[in-house]
């Protein structure tokens, strides 16, 4: 096979020519109060958009259902940007980490809503801050996956255990369970449940983004090592499971009634535990335990969607009005599948949760407590999937034998992932 070098040479010449001309950053388009808006959302939230469109025919809202799997939406917007296609005015991100891709090249999609949206104060503490960078707020939170302590009250009473309020007590509980009731589990620590639930709630910094290009990674701090001290022994004695909570082998544990307690996001009860442990009156929710030396029982976060408005929208006012409806309208919040980020909306949403006789006690106080305490160190970064991969390949696989070296491996990979994704890694 003969390969001609001419195309390569021509390409090289073309690249030299083109390197001289650079695209300029576009400023926002002229606003048109009559312009309709297009909303891209997953199959659940597209219903909200459609309802809004039906109720407000003058607003001329087009609701489009889109694939919301990891990376799909960001790449779709990036492709549309590259091709010069029409972009949506509003996007729902069920994978909120995608915002880190959207604020970077080649997309530069989001609008800083801090000036246009006057309702941002109504959201749970810290939820707007998660996608605020350099004073600009790039998202409006929709729902949150704050972590709490789910526990089987019936089992706790029959075994004579107290509900832990600190992670030292959690560790002691795990050690007691391993001896007295082997086979019972304190939940999954796999992937984001372990990383964002345990390490995240402790304030361990692995995705603490400060801008599109700066992130703080500090994995030698006490906030990380104190988690190792709890996770290591519980991995070794088997009370913490390395299986994903939705793995059939783990659901079997729940079905057989061997899940004693778990640090899990707010939605885990109705969507993870309830389907496999249907009997009423067993499960209750307690606030997050406090880490040794910490003054606040911060929560981790797993999931939680956000709304993003396009900086290229020709009708920002209409886009903001829709997002305000989607995130703060009480009826919409009540009908939402997961815990609303809007404080007033959450209160209304909790009414049905409180009334649910599946719970042994009202879970509302614990859920509310955690909602406003998501650790401020948890940010959105472009390498979140790599973090989860690395966590699973280090701490999850080797943590039972040597948690320190497994976590050190994780630390190395986290920095590599951040740098590969174009971040400058800061110590603090």
């Amino acid at each position, binding site marked *: *096979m003969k390969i001609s070098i001419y195309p390569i040479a021509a390409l090289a010449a073309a690249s030299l020519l083109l390197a001289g001309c650079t695209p300029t950053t576009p400023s926002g388009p002229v606003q048109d109060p009559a312009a309709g808006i297009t909303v891209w959302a997953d199959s659940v939230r597209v219903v909200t958009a459609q309802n809004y469109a039906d109720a407000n025919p003058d607003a001329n809202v087009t609701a489009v259902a889109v694939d919301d799997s990891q990376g799909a939406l960001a790449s779709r917007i990036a492709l549309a940007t590259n091709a010069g296609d029409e972009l949506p005015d509003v996007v729902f991100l069920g994978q909120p980490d995608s915002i880190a*891709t959207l604020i970077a090249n080649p997309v530069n999609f989001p609008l800083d809503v801090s000036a246009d949206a006057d309702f941002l104060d109504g959201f749970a503490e810290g939820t707007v801050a998660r996608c605020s960078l350099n004073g600009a707020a790039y998202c409006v939170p929709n729902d949150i996956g704050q972590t709490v302590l789910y526990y089987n009250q019936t089992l706790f009473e029959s075994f004579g255990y107290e509900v832990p309020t600190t992670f030292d007590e959690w560790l002691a509980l795990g050690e007691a369970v391993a001896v007295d009731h082997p086979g019972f589990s304190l939940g999954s620590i796999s992937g984001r449940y372990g990383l964002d639930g345990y390490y995240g709630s402790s304030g361990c910094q692995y995705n603490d983004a400060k801008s599109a290009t700066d992130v703080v990674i500090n994995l030698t701090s006490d906030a990380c090592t104190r988690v190792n001290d709890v996770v290591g022994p519980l991995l070794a004695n088997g009370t913490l499971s390395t*299986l*994903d909570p939705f793995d059939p*082998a783990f659901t079997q544990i729940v079905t057989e009634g061997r899940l004693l307690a778990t640090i899990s996001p707010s939605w885990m009860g109705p969507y993870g535990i309830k389907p496999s442990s249907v009997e009423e009156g067993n499960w209750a929710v307690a606030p997050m335990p406090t880490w040794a030396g910490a003054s606040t029982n911060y929560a981790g976060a797993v999931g939680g969607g956000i709304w993003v408005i396009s900086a290229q929208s020709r009708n920002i006012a209409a886009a903001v009005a829709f997002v305000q409806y989607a995130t703060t309208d009480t009826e919409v919040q009540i009908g939402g599948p997961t815990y609303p980020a809007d404080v007033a909306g959450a209160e209304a949403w909790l009414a049905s949760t409180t009334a649910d006789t599946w719970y042994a006690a009202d879970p509302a106080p614990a859920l509310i407590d955690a909602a406003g305490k998501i650790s401020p160190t948890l940010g959105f970064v472009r390498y979140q999937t790599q973090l989860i991969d690395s966590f699973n390949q280090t701490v999850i696989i080797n943590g039972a034998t040597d948690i320190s070296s497994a976590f050190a491996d994780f630390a190395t990979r986290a920095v590599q*992932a951040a740098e590969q994704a174009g971040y400058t890694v800061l110590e603090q």
Partner: protein
Amino acid sequence: MARRVSRRATFGPAFIAPYVIFLLLFGLVPAAYGVYNAFIVTPVVGDTYYSLTKNFEDVLGDYRLPSATANVAMYLAIWLPLLLIVVFGIALLIDSKRSRFAGFTRFIVYVPGAVTGSAAALLWLFMFSPTVSPISNLLKPLAGSNGLIISNQTLPFVLAVMGIAAGAGGWVVLLLGALSAIPKELIDAARVDAASTWQIIWHVKLPLLRRYAAFILIVSLANGFQVFVEPQVLGAGSIGQISSTWSVNQLVYAYASEEANFGRASALSVVLLAVTVVAAIIVIKKTNFYRVEGH
């Protein structure tokens, strides 16, 4: 005579036109655009620029590439030899004893090949999931400490089993066709010279099937280097057990989707293409694949 030539000149291109159009639209143009894209660098902030080397340096220096490459190499090292052994073994076995069941046997061998791609991945996901697998008792000794079969380390074996189950049947049918094309006189002559069945296979049939082996290798290599669907589906099914960038092509996908960095995605695709082409050239040279009989 002249008229005939001109007619042939019109009909020839007309016949290949549909193929050429599709090749251009969905093969060559995207490939050329991909190569062009490989030289466009998109920094996280700041202006896009052109560079001959930057994207290639970035992807070749990626910390995920060595393990992804090792995974794919391991997979190929297990899958390709096994595939050839299984395919040739079954084909020669069926061919050596031609009975009236030959047609039926051929059909049976081909059937598993009907389930391919993501469907096969889903099927095997269940087969290898200890809690639901119909052969879970057989699998127990293979499970890791977490009780699961599928993991980053076992995936090359799992993929090899999947690849052979899905692909072997088609190749066997192809080889049986080739075997039946071997002149009967050749086999008879060998028999007259007192060659055993084994000797006939080794000295007559196999040398004549050399190019088929090459063909199977080339096609399988190209597919194998680009393995994507199977680890992607198995990874989505057994959550947390398989790295999202287990194979090189998945790394390409990660660049394009999560990082929206099409330059890097294209650069790694070009590298992948180059590796596949070089591997194919080596196979072609070593087996005289394009040699015309009598030259």
